[in-house]
């Protein structure tokens, strides 16, 4: 069935398709219409919606609900994402699957509430305290909002990590045609449940793999969850051997599976001399520019990550190899640009960006590419 949906509506529909049945949130522009959609849709499918007193409470509530075995999410924007960081850290440490959509607006602080930006890219990676890994997806279209939300839930459940959808005000309120797949048409992953009797169950038992099964509260498996460093049983410990083992697993369960997690799009990359690296709404301006440049005979292509954390390092290196130069285009002051420079350290990496609330127009990108060619 084809529907005209906004990006935020598509995230809500994707969440419901993925099995999300609990949403706790606090209104914040430009994400509020996502919460509105969930408040309308969840009761129709047997789910629950609650508007909490703030973003801290929202993030706490979805962790609580997730521990009861219910797939849960919240949505917010910059200032709210800042408030949620403590609980993101908790979810990472306690390995509770949650999904957070951050509809990016201009920052810092209250910034530009009704305008787009891509200024929270690094916050999604390093925003909360402590060492942990989370997964971040960046949709560039309304349809992708749907599919990447399903993927966010799948990855969150599979790896027991917080997963973020980093959208932006442009994609959030853009309306496009979306085909909602039939149930069963695309894969929906549920967290692994314990296969041992309760007396043998440990919530952080890594003997069978990097991601231990997670029992639901109330299902007969009584266990303890804490944000303190803990051993495989879930109880606090400060034994360096046990703590080290836990923290290493929390990062390794993602770092060892980057190639299985990442997803990207290559557009006219093969014969390109110049590789444009861009993501989210900005990548659409890049594609428009690439079309124009190709008409002028300029060989240029786009490399666009759909999953940005963990960063698709190897995949990017491979795509960039042999190219004359790489141009990073983003709506911030060089957040991912530095990351690309780090990864492609032996290449010419150019960067362009702005953070004034305006999506970068294709003409500016064309000009920049031409500039690179003549320099």
């Amino acid at each position: 069935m084809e529907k005209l949906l906004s990006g935020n509506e598509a995230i809500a529909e994707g969440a419901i398709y993925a099995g999300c049945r609990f949403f706790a949130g606090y209104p914040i522009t430009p994400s509020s219409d996502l919460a509105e959609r969930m408040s309308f849709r969840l009761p129709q499918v047997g789910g629950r919606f609650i508007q909490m007193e703030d973003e801290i409470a929202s993030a706490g509530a979805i962790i609580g609900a997730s521990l009861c075995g219910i797939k849960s999410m919240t949505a917010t924007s910059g200032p709210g994402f800042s408030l949620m960081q403590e609980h993101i850290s908790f979810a990472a440490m306690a390995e509770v699957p949650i999904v957070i959509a951050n509809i990016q607006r201009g920052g810092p602080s209250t910034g530009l509430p009704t305008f787009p930006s891509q200024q929270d890219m690094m916050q999604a990676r390093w925003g909360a305290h402590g060492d942990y890994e989370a997964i971040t997806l960046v949709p560039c279209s309304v349809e992708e909002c749907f599919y990447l939300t399903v993927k966010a839930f799948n990855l969150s459940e599979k790896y027991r990590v917080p997963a973020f959808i980093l959208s932006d005000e442009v994609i959030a309120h853009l309306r496009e045609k979306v085909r909602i797949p039939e149930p069963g048409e695309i894969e929906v992953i549920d967290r692994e449940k314990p296969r041992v009797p309760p007396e043998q169950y440990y919530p952080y038992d890594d003997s069978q793999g990097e991601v231990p099964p997670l029992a639901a509260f109330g299902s007969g498996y009584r266990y303890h969850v804490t944000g303190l460093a803990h051993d495989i049983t879930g109880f606090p410990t400060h034994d360096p051997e046990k703590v080290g083992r836990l923290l290493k697993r929390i990062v390794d369960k993602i770092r060892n599976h980057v190639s299985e997690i990442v997803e990207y799009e290559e557009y006219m990359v093969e014969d390109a001399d110049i590789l444009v690296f861009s993501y989210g709404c900005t990548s659409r301006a890049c594609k428009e520019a690439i079309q124009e440049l190709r008409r002028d005979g300029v060989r240029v292509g786009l490399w666009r990550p759909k999953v940005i954390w963990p960063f698709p390092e190897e995949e990017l290196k491979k795509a960039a190899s042999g190219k004359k130069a790489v141009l990073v285009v983003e709506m911030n002051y060089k957040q991912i640009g530095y990351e690309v420079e780090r990864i492609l350290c032996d290449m010419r990496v150019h960067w362009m960006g702005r953070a004034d609330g305006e999506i970068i127009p294709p003409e500016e990108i064309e000009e920049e590419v031409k500039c690179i060619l003549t320099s």
Partner: protein
Amino acid sequence: MKIEVRLVGEGGQGLILGGLILAEAAIRDGKNVAHTQTYGAAARGEISKSDVIISDETIYYPKVRQADILLALTQEAYDRYTRYLKEGAIIVVDEFYVKRYDKDRKVYALPLSDTAIKETGKVITVNMVSLGVISELTGVVSKESLKEAMLARIPKGTEEINLKALEAGFEMGRKAKEKG
């Protein structure tokens, strides 16, 4: 084919809904669409803009930059957005509100709101009259799709007056086209 349509007026004139219906009509015609609108404090009286890109191809850059079709329901809207038009763009204005316009351009100054009041007794149906005119004048969406898309979107119980307004728009568009 890629057509950029811009509907501009003030909050309360139903242009956001108008844009949605136009976009959904285009989907029914099998096209790709990208709809964007003014976002933020869009209270009654403030400028309200509803942009629709309609294309056979994939739409990359999602914002309207130079419109092929502009509907302006207020003078302010006309003054502000005629800067961003393609050469030969078709402009439709409400002659009641827009008194000063560029004689060199292709401007259809039509009694849109007057017709809405006359036909339905409700000025709010000006959006449907306008959509009817645009469809008939430009063929950007088919009349059937527009009718279906409208009926699927509007609140129950308002079908009759909205259809009446739309038909009046088709009629006005046809006459305007004949006149050239």
